[in-house]
């Protein structure tokens, strides 16, 4: 199954009944999958919106009344959605937003890239907020993380971003789907379905009172701290005896893993740390690895974005090198193997 359709199937199995989108390559298979499975079905909604702006605001509307709702796009379209994501974050409304990244800036290219790491992990829109960001690296993980995204969104009342890329979306791989959510999910508390048998409720973000807004921000950040504590995940691969650890996410991590296997076959002690939650970033896990390894290589398909989180986590411990390929270039595992092998020798690790 292709990655985009796998997200769609996983979303439906997670109880997503509302999808709003706008066409953009390379994620159209997802929009089409949702059109096929959600239009003209009772209790389901699919709208091809007039713009990304409209689509994310439809998600906002569906989330207001308690639906599990989703939208998807690729980099330029995600820029347009930032307004809505900021409102979702402010109103503490769950939603799942998929970004199958392509090369940028501007219209860029339709080839896979990782250039929206900053946008995704720093909030992306205006205001002081975060979204949970998940970085899948296979079609199987696209499916698994999509299901997890809906659970996290509901649990923490927060928008969750799935930060994939064009290759993951387009490629086909075998995939198995986890258990389906129950057909009838309980109605989420605070859904605005009319003030029947209760006082009327307000969902708002505007206040003319700065100290009221300060309290809203404090409460958001208390929840963010809890998310950091409870939901941070990463994968490590052969780090125990590693003298050099590569840190990469998504498709880049997958390529790096292949390169590391090649290098290991040559007797080089190299490991991999792959953040799965990009926000919250696995700082503690990076620190833990730094207790036994002094050398790091960050590999990204951009000019150096996640590396800042790595450096923040390390706080001066160890040495961090960088290998980046921007603009939608997908380096071969052999190229990455050459880079890490060269670094290994340069640093006298052999």
């Amino acid at each position: 199954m292709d990655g985009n359709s796998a997200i769609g199937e996983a979303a439906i199995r997670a109880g997503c009944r509302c999808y709003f989108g706008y066409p953009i390559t390379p994620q159209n298979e997802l929009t089409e999958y949702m059109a096929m499975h959600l239009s003209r079905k009772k209790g389901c909604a699919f709208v091809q919106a007039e713009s990304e702006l409209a689509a994310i605001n439809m998600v906002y509307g569906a989330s207001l009344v308690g639906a599990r709702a989703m939208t998807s796009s690729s980099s330029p379209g995600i820029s347009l959605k930032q307004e809505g994501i900021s409102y979702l974050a402010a109103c503490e409304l769950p939603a799942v937003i998929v970004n199958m990244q392509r090369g940028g800036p501007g219209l860029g290219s339709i080839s896979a890239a990782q250039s929206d790491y900053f946008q995704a992990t720093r909030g992306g829109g205006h205001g002081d907020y975060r979204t949970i960001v998940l970085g899948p690296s296979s079609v199987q993980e696209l499916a698994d993380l999509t299901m997890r995204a809906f659970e996290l969104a509901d649990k923490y009342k927060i928008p969750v971003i799935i930060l994939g890329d064009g290759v993951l979306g387009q490629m086909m791989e075998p995939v198995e789907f986890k258990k389906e959510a129950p057909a009838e999910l309980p109605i989420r508390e605070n859904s605005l379905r009319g003030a029947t048998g209760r006082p009327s409720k307000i969902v708002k973000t505007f206040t003319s009172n700065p100290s009221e807004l300060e309290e809203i921000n404090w409460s958001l950040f208390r929840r963010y701290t809890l998310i950091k504590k409870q939901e941070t995940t990463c994968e490590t691969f052969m780090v125990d005896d590693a003298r050099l650890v590569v840190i990469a996410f998504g498709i880049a991590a997958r390529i790096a893993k292949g390169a590391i296997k090649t290098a290991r076959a040559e007797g080089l002690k190299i490991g991999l740390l792959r953040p799965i939650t990009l926000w919250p970033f696995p700082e503690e896990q990076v620190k833990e690895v730094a207790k036994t390894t002094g050398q790091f290589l960050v590999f990204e398909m951009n000019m150096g974005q996640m590396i800042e989180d790595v450096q923040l986590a390390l706080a001066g411990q160890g040495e961090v090198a960088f290998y980046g390929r921007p603009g939608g270039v997908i380096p071969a595992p052999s190229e990455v193997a050459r880079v890490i092998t060269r670094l290994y020798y340069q640093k006298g690790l052999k």
Partner: protein
Amino acid sequence: MLIKTLIAGFGGQGVLSMGLNLAEAAMLEGKNVTYLPAYGAEVRGGTANCTVAISDDEIASPVASSPEFVVAMNQPSAVKFQHHIQSGGLFFLNSSLVEVEILRGDIEIVRVAANKIAEELGSPKAANMVMLGALTRKSGLVELASMIETLKRIMGAKKKLVDVNEKALKTGYDLF
């Protein structure tokens, strides 16, 4: 062992379904597999290609910068991809449509008159299956039986269609 195959041609030649058939047959045999079609503006204007990676281990990248096997179903693909093939690799040419001279001496060239053979079989549209049969035999990537089983799974109840394609697949396979 990781082997990558790139299949290219005109849109409508069944290039993507060749790749899909190969990928699913490999999956049936319990191998790790990725299938990546070229997409978007790249495939507008009549050309199509896809990459299939098959391995016993996890596959690092579904992209092939230097595939072991390349299938060129038309002339532009033969020109474009001949320099991508890994040294020692196999280059499958649809000699019914490809006339260009291949300049590389470090690869093996496999010529299959796919269109001509398909026409002789009375099903000109099955040229892709003739080529896929040849690829199956020469590459040894998957068993012919897996290919046929996949074919049946993909085409489902359309028995006539399955028969035509199976025949073409076997004919291609028996060429070598």
